[in-house]
């Protein structure tokens, strides 16, 4: 037994020199990393504080990072050779690059929460700015008019864009007509239309040419120009995931094309379509640029999106942040916080729904199936 163990250890030792592990972290790596971090910290302290005429926290971190790369590269090279050293360097760079993408998100969320929670009171959701004067405290008044405006505008925009987007996706993926190929290119191009251009377009076409006023409806038209391609593209991807065998089975059983789409393809991809719509809403709800040109902005509640100027949450924030009064700026931050919470909530809902596969049977569906005696 002992002999066997020793022999095996010998074998593994002999192999360990050759074997390259791909996803596991070895203790020697950790040691080298910690050692290099300390060494490069000391070195950058010496260089930065003593020799070089530099200052600023940001520069310090940059110098430390570069020195860390150099020191750990040399260390791994000495210990394990050139090839491993390159691999190590690449790994460190990729890890730090990825964290560069994630860290700002955390900082942004924390910063907006920290700035915005002071004035976040229940009345922010109940009052408009009717009684807000220059000297009012930040906790007076609220953004209810902006929240209602945003809900109405985004609601109308989704009423326009969602059916249109899903039928367009159906055309691209189910009907597959002659226009499908150019249409896909144009949808891609449309998703790249800058948001301000969408606003300009509605201003030119709806307000200047047709003689309408700046209203909530004009805002939702501009939003639906941005919404339509997003929904179409994501819905098309979702429809593409429906297995072709299901369609063929439906057609083979004598189902018409319309029946196949309405009873097989769309129900199968329902959770994906809902996710597509919610993600689209999350994207559109924060759009500011087109609304500057189209909704006009207001300080008091306007329940009617068809007449009169309306406010919207992003526009509310954008206007108030440039006020000189501290209280207005505080309100703007609260608006930004509410906006961010809305986006986060929508996003989490979308993820929770989208995580389910097409074969997921929820409580409601189970009940319905049971009633039919199918499950």
């Amino acid at each position: 037994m002992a002999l066997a163990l020793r022999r095996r250890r010998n074998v593994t030792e002999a192999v360990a020199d050759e074997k390259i592990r791909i996803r596991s972290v070895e203790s020697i790596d950790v040691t080298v990393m910690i050692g290099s971090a300390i060494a490069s910290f000391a070195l950058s302290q010496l260089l930065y504080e003593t020799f070089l005429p530099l200052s600023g926290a940001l520069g310090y971190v940059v110098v430390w990072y570069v020195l860390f790369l150099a020191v750990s590269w040399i260390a791994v090279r000495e210990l394990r050779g050139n090839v491993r050293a390159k691999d190590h360097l690449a790994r460190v760079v990729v890890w730090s690059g990825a964290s560069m993408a994630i860290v700002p998100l955390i900082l942004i969320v924390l910063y907006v929460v920290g700035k915005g929670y002071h004035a976040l009171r229940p009345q922010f959701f109940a009052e408009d700015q009717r009684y807000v004067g220059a000297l009012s405290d930040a906790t007076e008044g609220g953004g209810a008019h902006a929240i209602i405006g945003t809900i109405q505008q985004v609601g109308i925009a989704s009423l326009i864009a969602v059916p249109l987007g899903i039928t367009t996706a159906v055309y691209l993926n189910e009907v597959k007509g002659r226009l499908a190929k150019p249409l896909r290119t144009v949808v891609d191009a449309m998703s790249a239309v800058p948001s301000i251009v969408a606003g300009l377009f509605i201003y030119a076409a709806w307000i200047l040419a047709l003689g309408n006023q700046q209203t909530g409806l004009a805002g939702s038209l501009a939003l639906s120009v941005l919404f339509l391609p997003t929904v179409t593209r994501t819905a098309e991807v979702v429809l593409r995931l429906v297995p072709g065998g299901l369609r063929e089975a439906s057609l083979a059983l004598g189902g018409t094309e319309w029946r196949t789409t309405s009873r097989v393809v769309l129900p199968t991809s329902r959770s994906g379509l809902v996710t597509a719509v919610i993600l689209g809403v999350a994207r559109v709800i924060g759009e500011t640029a087109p609304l500057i040109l189209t909704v006009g902005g207001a300080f008091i509640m306007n329940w009617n999106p068809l007449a009169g100027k309306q406010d919207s949450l992003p526009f509310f924030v954008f206007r108030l942040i440039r006020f000189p009064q501290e209280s207005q700026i505080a309100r703007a931050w609260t608006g930004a916080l509410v906006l961010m919470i809305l986006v986060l909530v929508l996003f989490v809902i979308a993820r929770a729904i989208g995580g389910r596969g097409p074969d997921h049977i929820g409580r409601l569906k189970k009940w319905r199936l049971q009633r039919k005696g199918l499950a």
Partner: protein
Amino acid sequence: MTSVADVSESNLVDEARVTPVVRRSKVDRAYRAVATLSGSVVFVVMALIGGFLLYRGIDALRISGWGFITESQWAPDMGGAFGIAAVLPYTVSIALVALFLAVPISVATALFITEYAPRRLRRFLTATIDLLAAVPSLIYGLWGLFYLQPRLITLSKWLADNLGFIPFFEVNEDFGTSLGVFPSSTFVAGVIVSLMVIPICTSVMREVFGQAPPGEREGAMALGGTRWGVVRDVVLPFGRGGIIGGSMLGLGRALGETIAVTLIISPSFDAKWSIVEQGSNSIAALIALKFSESTETGISALMAAGLALFVITLIVNTAASSVVNRSRSGSATEI
């Protein structure tokens, strides 16, 4: 699957070409018509956008003539000259600064997700990148203005102090390099825009990297390649189209970014090389800032500027999606 053409070529059927007889019911015809109609709405809207911007902007273009491209002033309402000769270079340079930062970070993030991250982290990271795309640009702008800018200008100062001989980092000697000359610059705006470009680039690159052929990947590993070896010799060469296409899609987004840039820059109408010095501009920010104070000719001029932006992003994005589509296999799932 045998197509119609194959059958007729194989001479099994001599004379009559076999055309499948499709007799659709009324409902099916109606369904196809509705789907086609809603598909064509997209064409109509795109044509209308271009058409209306041109129709409204043509007056201004008539007044300015070629000056629209060569003039850097913007004073259409006072009967003065106006053009995009300063605004356009600023727009492009903000976008280029953004890409300069975003592309390496996106490549690293995409590689991290597809190659390096533990399996459990992958889904979480993908969701986080999507969330990064869903955060409103307004919030990026606010964060950039209040949090990042005061910290970033120390880096601007460092660049100006130590690399001032490069025209990009040069600042006017008269003012010296006090911190006051660095806010609201192209550089700061570009850094903020890069945060918004990262998720777009990353999601395209991730998709393309994930499609690197497993055979080659395993072959490289079997030959004793390290992880980096696999990435360098398999993943990156196969994903080159994705990197280029993703970067161009990001460029399109960066060129049209409005609110964050509007919040950060202080408008400048003299083109300059320096990216760290105060004063910058972009077409989208110009429209957002000048819109409320413009009268008839001014609006018309803004429409013309919007048309220019529309055409530029259209070209960039069409090129980008053709590059990405060529490097992506669009196969459907079959059972």
